[in-house]
C-alpha cells in the first residue's frame, strides 16, 4: 500500500508526509503575510479615524458574522477529527467528516452571499450613496469588502481542495490514510479558519458598546 503513495524523489513515505506537512506550513506562512498587509493598513486607518471606524463598524451584521464564525470553527473541528480518523484507519468516518466540512464551508459562503446582499441593500459600498459621512467610514468598508472578499476566495479554494479529497477517496476510503493530501488540505482549511477568527473582531465587534 505504501508504495502506491510514494512519490519521487522521496525514499520513505514518512519523509514524504513530513515534507508535505512542512511545505504546507511554509506556504501558510506566506498566506499569513498576504493578509498582514491588510491588517497593517486597517490598523493605521483605525488609528487615524477612530470615530469613522466606530460608526462604520456598527453597520456590519453581527448575527451573520458570529454565526459564520461558529460555522467555520465547527468545520475546523470536523476536519480535525477527520484527520484523526484517517490516521486511525477509520476511512469511512474520515470521508463522512470531510463531506460535513465541505457542507459547513459551503454554508459559510452562502450566508456570506446573503450578508453581502443585505450590505448592498444598505448601500454600504463606498461611493455616492454611502450612508455615513464620518471621515474614514468609507475606508472601513473598503477593508470590509476586500478582507471578506479575499477570505471568501480562500474559502472557495479550500472547498475545491476538499471536493478533490472527497471525489478521489469516495471509492477507496483508505486512500485518506495513505495520502499526505488530507493533512495538507486540513492545514490550509485551519488557516482559513484562523484568518476569519482574526477578521471577526476587526469587522464585527467594532463600536458595539457605543451608541
Amino acid at each position: 500500500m505504501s508504495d502506491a503513495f510514494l512519490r519521487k524523489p522521496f525514499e520513505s513515505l514518512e519523509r514524504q508526509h513530513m515534507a508535505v506537512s512542512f511545505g504546507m506550513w511554509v506556504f501558510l506562512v506566506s498566506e499569513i503575510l498576504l493578509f498582514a498587509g491588510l491588517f497593517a493598513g486597517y490598523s493605521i486607518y483605525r488609528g487615524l479615524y477612530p470615530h469613522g471606524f466606530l460608526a462604520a463598524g456598527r453597520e456590519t451584521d453581527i448575527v451573520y458574522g458570529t454565526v459564520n464564525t461558529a460555522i467555520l470553527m465547527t468545520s475546523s473541528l470536523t476536519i480535525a477529527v477527520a484527520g484523526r480518523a484517517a490516521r486511525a484507519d477509520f476511512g469511512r468516518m474520515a470521508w463522512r467528516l470531510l463531506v460535513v466540512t465541505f457542507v459547513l464551508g459551503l454554508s459559510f459562503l452562502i450566508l456570506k452571499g446573503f450578508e453581502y446582499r443585505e450590505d448592498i441593500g444598505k448601500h454600504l459600498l463606498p461611493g455616492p450613496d454611502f450612508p455615513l459621512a464620518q471621515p474614514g467610514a468609507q475606508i472601513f468598508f473598503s477593508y470590509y469588502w476586500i478582507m471578506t472578499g479575499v477570505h471568501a476566495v480562500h474559502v472557495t479554494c479550500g472547498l475545491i481542495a476538499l471536493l478533490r479529497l472527497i471525489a478521489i477517496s469516495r471509492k477507496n476510503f483508505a486512500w485518506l490514510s495513505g495520502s499526505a493530501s488530507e493533512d495538507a488540505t486540513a492545514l490550509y482549511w485551519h488557516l482559513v479558519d484562523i484568518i476569519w477568527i482574526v477578521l471577526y473582531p476587526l469587522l464585527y465587534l467594532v463600536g458595539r458598546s457605543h451608541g
Partner: protein
Amino acid sequence: MDERARKREIWFRPVLVWVALCALLATTCTLSYVPLGGFSLPVALCIAALKGALVGAIFMRLFENNALNRLAAAAGPIWVFVMFLLMGADYFTR
C-alpha cells in the same frame, strides 16, 4: 466496543477544543457590548489570538513531533510584527 471506544477517543480532545472556542466566541461577542473604552480592541484581539493558538496548537498539531513546523509557524507572526513595528515607526512619529 473497542472500535466505538476508539472513535469516542478520536472525538474527545477536538470537541473539548471546540467547546473552548465557542466559549471564547461567546465571551468576545458579549464583551464587545461592554464599554471598555480603548481596551475593547486589545481584549478582542487577545481572545482572537487565544482562539487562533488553540486551532494551531491542537487542530493543526503544531506541538507534535516535527519542530520544523513550529519554526515555520513562528516566522509568520514574527514577520507581521516587524511590518507593524517599522510602519509604526513612521505613523506614530508623524
